[in-house]
């Protein structure tokens, strides 16, 4: 992958991060931490990896992306708007009465949202269902699922992990946003899911471990995953919660708190973005 394209994607991720700040600040609530941590993964997907057509969001052969950690809705919305699924101006309606940009993604209100999420732990099962349908219909689309590292404490995630391996769903690629934090503290203190990579391997998945802020590594990992036959693939992406905004990085309290106007200004300055 040429350096120029990677630099372009990195710049796109920066713009998406700026949207996340502006949106949550305008809403006065929302989840910046986990949106920022996965911004590079979601940017790489929407601007390079996914086979999608914003003009035709219901295209049967499109790749599916499922934001299982639905609280990162600002990230998904920013990517969809930047990619042309709906007007960028609409981003500032986040969480307001009557907006299509609900606090958690609603597939019936907004084009591009594949599954309604917000209750954690349910996205991978839906992804498996779509992957099974692809096999039944002889379609070659892939299903991508983004999971949180606190989210995988839900038993249902492991029921789905078992099922994906059982049905040899090699058209399922999952990312783990491995930022080490949930709401009540570090994942290892609240309820350790470790050893994470070994668990997915033991469940029959192909596992790669990468730096989730390195766009080159993200793209490479998906290219490798695409070649895997007979197994679902997990990409454990080490990330930093709040990435890109110094005072939010690795701070548990920025999980579900919106920046105040002066904090947003500071964050946008760091992201080299005008208010």
């Amino acid at each position: 992958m040429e350096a120029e394209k990677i630099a372009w994607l990195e710049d796109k991720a920066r713009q998406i991060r700026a949207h996340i700040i502006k949106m949550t600040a305008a809403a006065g609530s929302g989840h910046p931490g986990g949106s920022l941590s996965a911004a590079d993964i979601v940017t790489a997907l929407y601007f390079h990896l996914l086979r999608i057509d914003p003009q035709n969001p219901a295209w049967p052969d499109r790749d599916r992306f499922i934001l299982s950690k639905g609280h990162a809705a600002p990230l998904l919305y920013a990517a969809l708007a930047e990619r042309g699924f709906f007007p960028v101006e609409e981003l500032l309606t986040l969480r307001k009465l009557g907006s299509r940009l609900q606090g958690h993604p609603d597939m019936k209100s907004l084009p591009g949202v594949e599954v309604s999420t917000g209750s954690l732990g349910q996205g991978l099962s839906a992804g498996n269902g779509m992957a099974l349908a692809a096999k039944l219909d002889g379609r070659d689309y892939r299903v991508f699922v983004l999971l949180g590292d606190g989210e995988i404490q839900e038993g249902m995630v492991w029921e789905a992990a078992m099922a994906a391996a059982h049905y040899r769903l090699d058209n399922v690629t999952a990312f783990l946003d491995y930022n080490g934090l949930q709401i009540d503290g570090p994942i290892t203190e609240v309820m350790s899911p470790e050893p994470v990579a070994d668990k997915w391997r033991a469940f029959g998945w192909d596992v790669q471990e990468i730096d989730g802020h390195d766009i080159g590594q993200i793209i490479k990992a998906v290219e490798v995953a695409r070649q895997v036959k007979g197994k679902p693939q997990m990409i454990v992406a080490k990330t930093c919660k709040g990435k890109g905004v110094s005072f939010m990085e690795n701070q548990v309290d920025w999980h579900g708190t919106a920046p105040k106007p002066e904090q947003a200004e500071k964050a946008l300055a760091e992201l080299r973005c005008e208010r």
Partner: protein
Amino acid sequence: MQKIATREAYGDALVELGRENPDVVVLDADLSKSTKTINFRKHFPERFFNLGIAEQNMLGTAAGLAAAGKIPFCSTFAVFAPGRSFDQLRNSIAYPKLNVKIGASHAGITVGEDGATHQSVEDIALVRAVPNLTVFVPADAVETKKAVMAAAEIKGPVYIRLGRAAVPVLHGEDFVFEPGKAVVMREGGDAAIIATGVMVAEALAAAEELSREGISVRVLNIHTIKPLDTEAIISAAKETGAIVTAEEHSVIGGLGSAVAETVCEHCPVPVYRVGIPDVFGESGKPGELMEKYGLKARHLAAAVRKAIRR
């Protein structure tokens, strides 16, 4: 008027309970800052268990703790308990009548901006249908604290519905909370508003508004949905002849249904149910949503006028 969220009162009450009773243990599922069980954790870290984002496991673990003699209070948002963990509540806790208490916070649409996935509009309907379960829906901070204390005294499973938003304090500290006993908040003979939870304050405001029109409205506060104070409801039906129910919950299966069932069997009079129509919630400010879904005092007053005209 002073405003305090019932979840705040819940957090404080747990600490007091923890001091009084060493068998009280508290469980949470990665929401201790929101449910306010964090207060208990600060005082009694060895009796606090965070199960992570695993509500089913939390309720199942509580069943085991109770079977071994502890008094577990479990907390998460109401959408996740009873929502996510309904079968564990039913089969592991209620059926064997284990001594587990569930403090379910962020109930109803006053959750606000998080939207439909986080707004339980059907939890009362779910828990009300489960045998052996006591169901409390406190109206204010004082009632919440006393409900928590009462729950600890009850031998068996108890569900306590709590809210996110600050609500007016309606009772003095001398208020006596009797499980299963409705509270007459205001006397009146022309109609009765039978309310629960945050809607009690709206009902009082509606009664005040109607009194200026010469309509005298009784306000009955049902803090215990189960066992239901059918006597107080039947008296209200007999003595006023017109009933409006008020709840921050779906009109299906909650207080309105319970009242209609009772009134139909014993003393049929018009009953109008004010609550969330048969729809999911959405993002918005709590006040905007209460307005949109018709849960304000003026909506109750309109329902009373309609009930009286019939």
